[in-house]
């Protein structure tokens, strides 16, 4: 019987390296790919660690492939990444929202665009080094589950995956802790066992996303305006709503007796509304572009735990589907600041039911 071929997305980091090496040991026909995503890859001489597209990182991935003896290629997906991920990132900021490009990259690139490439290469699966688990029940339905290592769990970024995607996806690290992954990397002799985690957004290596938005925005799309308080009093002017995110405290450029936070961004007027910490609290949210891992599995109203930011704990909530792709999420008790544009992911215990993107907060 011929071995099943799996295309492994490799960043050069320890996670995807161990994922590829493990699949290799498990007998899969592994094909490693590093994706060139950001529009201007850095010059090979610049030493820049911690993002996923640099030349050094590709070399790390290549070394893993050489050590394990599987083929490795650098693939150029810059056009698709630019149109589908960076384009979305820019337009979301211009609309006064705070996007999550990693969710978009998973949905559009790793589990869609890369899957097309996988089929072109006669591969049966796509694998990544994500910390998440996929299981298949007796009825043949696929479930997306949190990783065993709660501190590394990345299921939040994967909620858009449906039955089709999960059926052809492998997450070899889902049952491992980061410590185990690093130990495994050492046993396998992978040089990047102790490499630092990537943190910032890969296509904004300097962290100055506002500048990126300004560089890419159409001329008339920058929305300037005022910073105002809840009563509408103008506190200051600002250079564009894309420079703000709901919940932000620093860099508002206003003096006040108590800390002020961005409470709301009004795209149409260009107003950025600030308030005290307690004024940030919300009762729930409206989520759009809702997807379910298993569309057949849920009622029109149900209880779940929701995560409204990657690093936030899940909050108990009551969900009501307003239409097929819009959900009203009501927190059981008062919730924290809700940031439009971020993903709201629905969990039941360890299982990801689905999720959507936050349209707006509910204050009543």
């Amino acid at each position: 019987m011929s071995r099943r071929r799996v295309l492994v997305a490799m960043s050069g980091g320890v996670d995807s390296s161990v994922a590829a090496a493990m699949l290799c040991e498990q007998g899969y026909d592994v094909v490693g790919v590093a994706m060139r995503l950001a529009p201007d890859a850095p010059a090979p001489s610049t030493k820049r660690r911690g993002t996923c597209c640099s030349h050094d990182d590709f070399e790390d991935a290549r070394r893993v492939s050489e050590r394990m003896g599987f083929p490795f290629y650098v693939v150029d997906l810059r056009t698709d990444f630019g149109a589908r991920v960076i384009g979305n990132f820019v337009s979301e900021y211009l609309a006064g929202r705070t996007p999550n490009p990693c969710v978009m990259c998973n949905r559009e690139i790793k589990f869609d665009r890369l899957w097309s490439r996988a089929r072109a290469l006669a591969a049966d699966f796509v694998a990544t080094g994500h910390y998440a688990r996929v299981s298949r029940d007796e009825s043949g339905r696929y479930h997306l589950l949190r990783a065993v290592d709660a501190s590394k769990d990345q299921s939040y970024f994967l909620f858009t995956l449906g039955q089709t995607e999960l059926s052809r996806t492998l997450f070899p690290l889902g049952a491992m802790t980061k410590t185990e992954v690093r130990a495994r990397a050492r046993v396998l002799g992978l040089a990047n066992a102790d490499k630092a985690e990537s943190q910032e957004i890969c296509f904004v290596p300097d962290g100055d996303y506002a500048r990126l938005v300004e560089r890419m925005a159409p001329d008339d799309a920058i929305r300037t305006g005022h910073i105002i308080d809840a009563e509408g009093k103008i506190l200051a002017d600002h250079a564009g709503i894309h420079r703000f995110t709901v919940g932000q405290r620093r860099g508002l450029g206003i003096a006040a007796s108590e800390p002020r936070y961005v409470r709301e961004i009004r795209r149409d007027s260009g107003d950025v509304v600030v308030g005290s910490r307690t004024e940030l609290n919300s009762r729930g949210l409206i989520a759009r572009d809702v997807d379910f891992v298993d569309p057949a599995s849920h009622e029109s109203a149900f209880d779940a735990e929701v995560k409204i930011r990657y690093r936030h704990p899940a909050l108990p909530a009551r969900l009501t589907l307003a239409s097929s792709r819009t959900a009203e999420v009501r927190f059981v008790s008062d919730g924290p600041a809700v940031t439009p544009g971020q993903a709201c992911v629905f969990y039941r215990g360890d299982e990801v039911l689905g999720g959507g993107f936050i349209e707006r907060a509910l204050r009543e």
Partner: protein
Amino acid sequence: MSTYLDHNAGSPLRPEAKGAIARFADDAGGNPSSVHRAGQSARRMLEEARARVAALIGADARQIIFTSGGTEANNLAIFGATRALASRRKVISSSIEHSSILKPLDALENVIRSSPDREGRLSPDEIAASIDTDTALVTLALANSEVGTIQEIGTIAEAAARDGAMFHLDAAQAVGRIPINVAELRCDLMTMSGHKLGAPAGIGALFVADPSMLTPMMRGGPQEGGLRAGTPNLLGAIAFGAAAAAVREHFHDEALRLSMLANELLAELLDAIPGLRLNGPIRDRLPNTMNLTFPKVLGESMLIALDLEGIHVSMGSACAAGAVEPSHVLLAMGLTHDEARSSLRLSLGWNTTRNDIARAANLIPRIWRRVSEAEPSPSPSRSHMENLR
């Protein structure tokens, strides 16, 4: 099972070169510059290799300068000639050259770069007309490495001779694939590359019609007639000589065999893949080289899919990170970016067999169908920028 169709990037070692390397390995070492008999023996081997390389292009052995490869030979030609004729200010070249000509020329001022037509042909009249008594050097590839177009250079050679400009031909791809005679071509300088002929990488040569006309770049000892200091790569030179002799011996049979195989493959592919296009001319093209634009696929995907099936071809050039970039030659020929990104180069060579061709003719259309169905290109763009509300 592996089918190697990337001889323009580098040919596998020829058995003759392997044999020469093995014999050399058993021999006592020596430096060709040394006075003792070990040195004399080394010198004899080096000079024999030089004579064999010279014979392949109809040159005199004294006109052959061994270098580390084609890139060094091109650099020596460009900088050696322009410094020797420093009072002249103009250099004439084209936009479809190898990077080892393009990049050195970036360091010079007053470079005229001629553009090709749709088939990769440069205009001899246009180039000849731009040559004048202020021209130091004309530097062109005799045959393009990516599409195989062979340039018509008679008029250019004449104009260069008339105005006293040096005429350099980069023949790294042409030597061994078409008959070459430096006297007929009337060039002053010609680049050769060992590993395109089945010698190992790391050895090349520059033919210099009149060695007194060139300024050396590498300075040091008096080796290579003072034009290239440094103890020569004797092992490489011997292998180069052996490969050159083998090429020369079998030239006509081999040229016929390869052009028949290539034509057969081309015909089968054109038949099996609707919309497939050959880049470059039908005639006046290196018989071993075919650059093809595949409809509805990315060349990158085809290249990887073929590689996974054991068929090794190439596309444009690789960036530092290893990703393939669309060919600057195809873009200069007027192909669109998408067309250039859908193009692959297949190049045959001494170890290509009838079986290889049958295998390629069978697998390439099948893989093309799979790739074009799974990953059609250009992909329907889904730009979120249009969704700005």
